[in-house]
């Protein structure tokens, strides 16, 4: 509940933020704090320096391009997305964000924080993989784009490395998406979640909570048996914990994959 000593800076620009992150080995970016502050309260991790991104206006906001691409600044909150007209170009984004925790968390929690913490039970990593999002990372060496499928590397590890910042996420337009989950209580932590998209014709499935990173499947069609075979063929090896055994997670993954695909099919 009580944090270790830490140093704090609140830069006004991305460049200043990168400089601070680069000059302290134990520096971490502070976005909404809905994960990081908890981790620090438990003293499970104690960065030496917190670089608060709150004042960097260019990192927050949602833009809709003429081709329908939705570009979301990393410091955009879940509430911003739920309330955004622009984000409705890809309705699944707001629908899923609305299921995350509660109003207080949605008001502060950010998409950047969600994807960069890459907790295996998070909603956005599988969702963004399924919809084919692209992440933009800024580092001392410049800016680069990474497809969502390649962004998530391990538990709490992403392609945005030390001294780098995720600045924005671009999502192509589309409506043929589905998201199915079994949470612990309404809007609670997910035991298993699955995001599915049919927009590129054949389905893209991303299964969360079963591995360090979302498990991506691309079955040939949305037919029930095809999807089932694909999930079983993935040989999932989920963790066992107090909320679910590996077997139960494996079973839920299959059921939820079918439901997510069915949902997506109903919306194309």
């Amino acid at each position, binding site marked *: 509940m009580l944090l270790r*000593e*830490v140093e*704090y800076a609140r830069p006004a620009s991305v460049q200043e933020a990168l400089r601070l992150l680069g000059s*302290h080995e134990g520096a971490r970016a502070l976005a909404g704090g809905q994960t990081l*502050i*908890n981790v620090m309260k438990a003293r499970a991790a104690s960065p030496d*320096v*917190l670089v608060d991104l709150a004042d960097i206006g260019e990192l927050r906001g949602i833009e809709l391009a003429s081709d329908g691409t939705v570009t979301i600044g990393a410091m955009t909150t879940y509430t911003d997305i739920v309330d955004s007209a622009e984000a409705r170009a890809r309705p699944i984004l707001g629908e899923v964000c609305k299921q995350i925790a509660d*109003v*207080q968390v949605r008001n502060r929690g950010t998409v950047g924080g969600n994807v960069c913490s890459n907790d295996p039970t998070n909603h956005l990593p599988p969702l963004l993989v399924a919809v084919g999002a692209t992440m933009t990372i800024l580092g001392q060496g410049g800016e680069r784009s990474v497809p969502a499928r390649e962004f998530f590397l391990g538990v709490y590890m992403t392609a945005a490395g030390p001294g780098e910042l995720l600045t924005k996420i671009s999502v192509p337009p589309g409506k043929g998406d589905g998201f199915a989950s079994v949470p612990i209580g309404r809007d609670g932590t997910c035991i298993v979640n699955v995001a599915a998209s049919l927009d590129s014709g054949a389905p893209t499935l991303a299964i969360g909570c079963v591995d360090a990173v979302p498990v991506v499947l691309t079955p040939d069609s949305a037919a029930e048996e095809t999807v089932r075979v694909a999930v079983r063929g993935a040989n999932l090896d989920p963790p066992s914990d107090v909320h679910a055994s590996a077997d139960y997670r494996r079973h839920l993954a299959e059921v939820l994959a079918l439901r997510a695909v069915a949902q997506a099919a109903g919306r194309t």
Partner: protein
Amino acid sequence: MEAVSSRTITVEVNGVQYEREVEARRLLIHFIRDDLNLTGSHIGCDTGNCGACSVLIDGVLVKSCMMLAVQADGAKIETVEGLASDGELNGLQQAFSDHHALQCGYCTPGMLMSATALLRENASPSEEEIRKGIQGNICRCTGYVNIVEAIKAAAQ
């Protein structure tokens, strides 16, 4: 600019300005309760799940245990102490009392702030919207039944 382990912050709470030196590691809820002596907001957990610490920061509902005090520098904060005027309960507080929406009163300040935020945004929420609006506030005494009734009544 450099990172610092403590700094002086200025906050406005319920219309009153405060300037204090605070360690960077101090949580906003501890700052409010211990440094500013505003003990109406409470702490019920250590993982940001219970919402007893809920306050409004620049009009936005947040859990103040999930923020550092230094993050609130320059902000306008509203806590439960700012709801009544001169000891006159506002409509929401009165509705809570009328409908027995509190028993031990420990979750109540946070619950009132969440309800305040909800009603500012949505003057006639449905039951589902009310429950969604207080989903981040745990109560162990009431089962939420009367809390929902009170907020419905206050909305009318």
